[in-house]
Every structure is written in structure tokens, then in C-alpha cells.
């Protein structure tokens, strides 16, 4: 009965591009959107408009990168917006108290990961749902913000001011800020980690099937905790960038940012159930949101409520197209 020869080669067409379809679709749609902007508004074609999208969304990008890790494991982190705000608040208040900038940076960069670590532990050891744990984390961090100060605190520290106002490139013409470079660095590191390290691959495995990952002998617990810590770290970096951006800490800043971030990650082609997606997609997702906003500002005729409706509508059109084109390609 042995018929090994029969089980052998079967003509199986490799389906390589399939994984990349969502990202490619996003890219194409983004280009179309940019094209529309250029054709409609003259100043839109300035290269600085593109740079501004990066300058204005650098912190969002960094936070979204952290969120990508979490979502790739099939989790979610709702605390990011509050942690960003808390980091900015802590930096601002410590600087106001006269601590040296370097020390403040270290402290601010420790708080986010610590909270992330604790949330990761709660999720892993007590098997609580990430949504709830991070929601509690969100309440906690936001509570801390107003606890630190009820009104916004300006930052006058020399290092911060320099980082904020430094223009890289032609200072009179087209330039980017330091935040953009930091954001790019974070993106590159994250992409490398996800693609080339054992930790990164374990993140994907957990997203695919946590039970299997455990039975395959992967360090599921450690990785899961690490992922929330990474997200906390990214939020902390995002918070620092935001404090560069606004040169202040305000208790109600970045409210609802978590939803923008989640939307960016998903638009970038990462699946919320985990296991599939790329950092590069997340970059595109952030750009999509940025370009939508730029389009609306350039138009400059929308009422407050029409702004929301149009954002919702564009989001819908985008997701729908992405989905339909995605299906077609598969």
C-alpha cells in the first residue's frame, strides 16, 4: 500500500504577493489621495506639505509602531493616548521643577514601559482581557495627568526648545524636525525587530495562535509582556516627541489618540485578530490619516460637523476600497 511517490510533488503555485496585498492597496490609495490633493489645491504640491505630514504625525507614527506590536499578537492597547499625555506632563512638570533635561528624559522614558510592563503582567498572569486592562491603564494615566496639574505646563528648557525648533534641511525652505528623524529611527528598528529577531517572529506566532505558540515551546508569556512594554516605550517616546511638538504638557492632550492609532494600524493592513501585518503598512496608515486631515484643512470651507462627517466618510471609502480591492486581488 505504500505509494510514497504519489504523495510527492504536487503542482502548488506559490502565493507570495497575497500577504502584501493589503499594504500595496493602501499605498496605491494613498497615492491617489495625494494626487487628488495636488490637482485640487495649488500649494498642495509643495514638498513641505509632505514634510509637514511627517512633522505633524511623528509622535503618532511612533505610538502606532508600538501598537502594531500589540495588535500583531492579537491584543490591543487603549492606554497609549493617556500614556503619551502622561509622559508629556511628567516631563513638563519635572522640567518646571528644575531637573536637568537628561534626567527628565530618562525618567519620562521609564514611566511608559513600566506601566506597559504591569499591564502585560496583568494580561498574562491573570488572563485578563487586554481591552479591559489597558482601558484601566488609560484611566490611570489620564488620572495621573490631571493629578500632576490641572492646567497645561509650558516647557522652557533649552534642550527641549532646541529639539522643538531645530529645522533640519533648508531652514528657510523645506525642512523636517528632529522628531521626524527619531520617528524614522523607531520605524526602522521596529521593522528590523519584527522581521529579523526571534522576539519579532514570536510576536507573529502568538498572533497566529497563542495556544499553538505555547505548545511549540515559544516564550509566550515573556513575549506578551514585552509587547505591552514595547508599546509603553513607544508611547513614552511619542510623549517626548509630543512635548517637543507642543513644548508643553497638557492634561487633556491626545485624548482619543488611541482610536487614531488603531485606525492607522488597521488601515495599514494589520489584522486586529493578530498575526499579519507590517510596520511599513502602519507608516502608510499614519500617512493616510495625515493626508486626510491636510486635505480638509486645505479645503478650509468645512463646518465643524462636516469635518467629522467627511473624516468618517473618507475613512469609510478608504476601508471599503481597500477591502474590495484586497478581495479582488486574492
Amino acid at each position: 500500500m505504500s505509494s510514497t511517490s504519489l504523495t510527492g510533488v504536487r503542482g502548488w503555485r506559490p502565493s507570495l504577493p497575497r500577504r502584501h496585498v493589503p499594504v500595496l492597496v493602501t499605498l496605491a490609495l494613498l497615492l491617489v489621495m495625494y494626487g487628488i490633493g495636488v490637482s485640487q489645491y495649488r500649494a498642495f504640491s509643495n514638498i513641505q506639505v509632505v514634510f509637514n505630514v511627517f512633522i505633524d504625525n511623528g509622535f503618532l507614527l511612533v505610538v502606532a509602531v508600538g501598537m502594531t506590536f500589540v495588535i500583531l499578537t492579537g491584543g490591543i492597547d487603549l492606554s497609549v493616548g493617556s500614556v503619551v499625555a502622561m509622559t508629556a506632563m511628567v516631563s513638563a512638570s519635572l522640567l518646571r521643577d528644575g531637573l536637568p533635561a537628561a534626567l527628565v528624559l530618562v525618567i519620562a522614558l521609564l514611566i511608559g514601559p513600566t506601566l506597559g510592563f504591569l499591564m502585560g503582567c496583568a494580561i498574562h498572569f491573570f488572563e485578563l482581557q487586554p481591552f479591559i486592562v489597558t482601558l484601566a491603564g488609560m484611566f490611570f494615566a489620564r488620572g495621573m495627568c490631571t493629578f500632576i496639574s490641572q492646567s497645561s505646563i509650558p516647557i522652557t528648557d533649552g534642550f527641549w526648545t532646541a529639539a522643538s525648533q531645530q529645522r533640519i534641511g533648508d531652514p528657510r525652505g523645506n525642512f523636517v524636525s528632529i522628531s521626524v528623524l527619531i520617528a524614522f529611527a523607531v520605524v526602522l528598528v521596529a521593522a528590523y525587530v519584527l522581521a529579523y529577531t526571534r522576539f519579532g517572529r514570536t510576536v507573529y506566532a502568538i498572533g497566529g495562535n497563542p495556544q499553538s505558540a505555547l505548545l511549540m515551546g515559544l516564550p509566550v508569556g515573556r513575549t506578551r509582556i514585552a509587547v505591552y512594554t514595547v508599546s509603553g516605550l513607544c508611547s513614552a517616546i511619542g510623549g517626548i516627541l509630543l512635548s517637543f511638538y507642543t513644548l508643553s504638557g497638557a492634561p487633556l492632550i491626545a485624548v482619543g489618540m488611541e482610536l487614531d492609532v488603531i485606525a492607522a494600524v488597521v488601515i495599514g493592513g494589520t489584522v486586529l485578530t493578530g498575526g499579519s501585518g507590517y510596520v511599513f503598512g502602519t507608516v502608510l496608515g499614519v500617512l493616510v490619516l495625515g493626508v486626510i486631515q491636510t486635505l480638509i484643512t486645505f479645503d478650509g470651507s468645512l463646518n465643524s460637523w462636516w469635518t467629522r462627517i467627511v473624516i468618517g466618510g473618507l475613512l469609510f471609502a478608504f476601508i471599503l476600497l481597500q477591502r474590495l480591492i484586497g478581495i479582488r486581488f486574492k
Partner: protein
Amino acid sequence: NSDTGGGSGAGDKIVLGFSQVGAESGWRTANTTSIKEAAAAAGIELKFDDAQQKQENQIKAIRNFIQQKVDVIAFSPVVESGWDTVLKEAKDAGIPVILTDRAVDSPDKTLYKSFLGSDFVKEGRLAGEWLVEQTKSATGPVNIVELQGTTGSAPANDRKEGFANAIAANPNLKIIASQSGDFKRADGKQVMEQFLKANPKIDVLFAHNDDMGLGALEAITAAGKTPGKDIVIITVDAVKDGMQALADGKFNFIAECSPLLGPQLMELVKKVHAGEEIPARIETEETTFTQEQAKEALPNRKY
């Protein structure tokens, strides 16, 4: 300046980029409407952007205004701090900036040309002074509860401060409870319900805006008390519903905070564009209303 204009080929119309906080209250909407109407009337092309209560969005909008090379930028800052970087970019691009409604705390006063808005401290003070006047003859303690606005916001802080300073004149006046109602009717009502249950004797309610006062009205009625009589109600803003309540005798006093900045703003824009010097701080024309004044004023109110 046809080479500079935005997409619409502005000709020699002045282009104003205006970044609004959002549309979080009726007051804000009236403010927006006023600006839009005034711009149209003054022949100024308005680029309007709604920041949905987010500072990040306002900064982005200002950047985009700079890219579009508008002639003047005006905005109502969501928070006080954090504007230096982007204002510097505007300054470098040679675009003058006017603040409306709320101030910024930047030490560098050259970053903007002027501030146009209300004096919140004064509003609180006017409210307090009226109360002191009314309770001159009171012998026993007068118990006041306060419904604060959004915690940490400039109007809430300043109105609280102004009010507290004014009532210090009479030691009988005492604030026995003060809690944030977030400038919203539903919250104002919920907080007032708890005030009423925790404090058997409340004589005066000071609400930081009309909406919270209107919410509190309901709570007071439900508790079997008569607003305006059993409890004296003082609020700030003077939006239509508030004025109606005042005219109906349910409120006792309102310190006005006018949203109708549009015409004044357009004046300033024109002057700034023409290179004229303008004062660094301009206050909106505001008044106060008693019940009688409200009855008179009500038919002519625009919002």
C-alpha cells in the same frame, strides 16, 4: 498676492486662516457663525478649520495655513501653552497671528499681534460683586455651591478666581461645595443632585456657564425647591436658553460672555494686513443681565 493664494485663486481678497477649537458648545457654534458671517460681510476669504478640541490638530492646521500662504492667521487656542514653535514658523513666513477668545502663555509677545476676547476673571468678579450687593443685609451665613467648568480650563480657573475674590468682601458668604460639571447640562444636573442631598441648606448656586445652570435647574425642581427663589442662581455666558431662564425668573443674574467676536476680528484682520499698529489686548464688549434687563434684551438676542 495672486502667486501666494491657496487653491481658490484669491485675487486681492485678504485670506484669513482661522482655527477653531471645535463645536463643543452652543457658545462655540455662535462664535463660529459670527466669524463666518463677519468674514463674508467684510469681503475676507476665510479658511476655516475645526480642531475638534485637540491642540495637535490646531498646530497642524496652522502649519497648513502657512503652506497656503494665507495673509493672516487667527485661532482660539485649545490650551494656553505650547504654541511657540509653530508661531515662530508663522512669524518666519511673515504671517501675522491674532488670538481670539483664549490667550497663550508664550513669553515672546512678538509671536502674535493681538488678543481679542473676554476677561474671564472679570466675569467671575461681576457675578460675585452682584451677589455681595444682594446679600448686604444678610445676617446669617449664606451657603454657596459652585459648579465649575472643565477642570483646568482657563474660563473655569479665572471665573472661580474672580468670583472668590469678589465674595471675600462679605465674610457671611461661604462656598460650601464646589465640583466640576464639565460645562455640560447633564453633568451640571448630576452634580447638583448630589449637592442637594449632601447639603440641606443651599442659598446660592454659581455656575460657570448657563448650560450647567440649566441642568441644575432641573435638579432643584426635582428636589421640590423653587429655583430663583429658594436658591439664587448666578451664571455666566448669556446664551439664549440662559437668558430665557433669567427672564422667566428662574435665574437671578448672568454675567455675559459674548461669542460675537466676528466683526471685531475682521476689523483687526484688515488693520493688521494693512500694516497698522493695533493694541496687544482687546476685550469684547460685554455686559451683565438682571431679570428685568433680560426681559428687555431677549427679543433682540442673536444667539
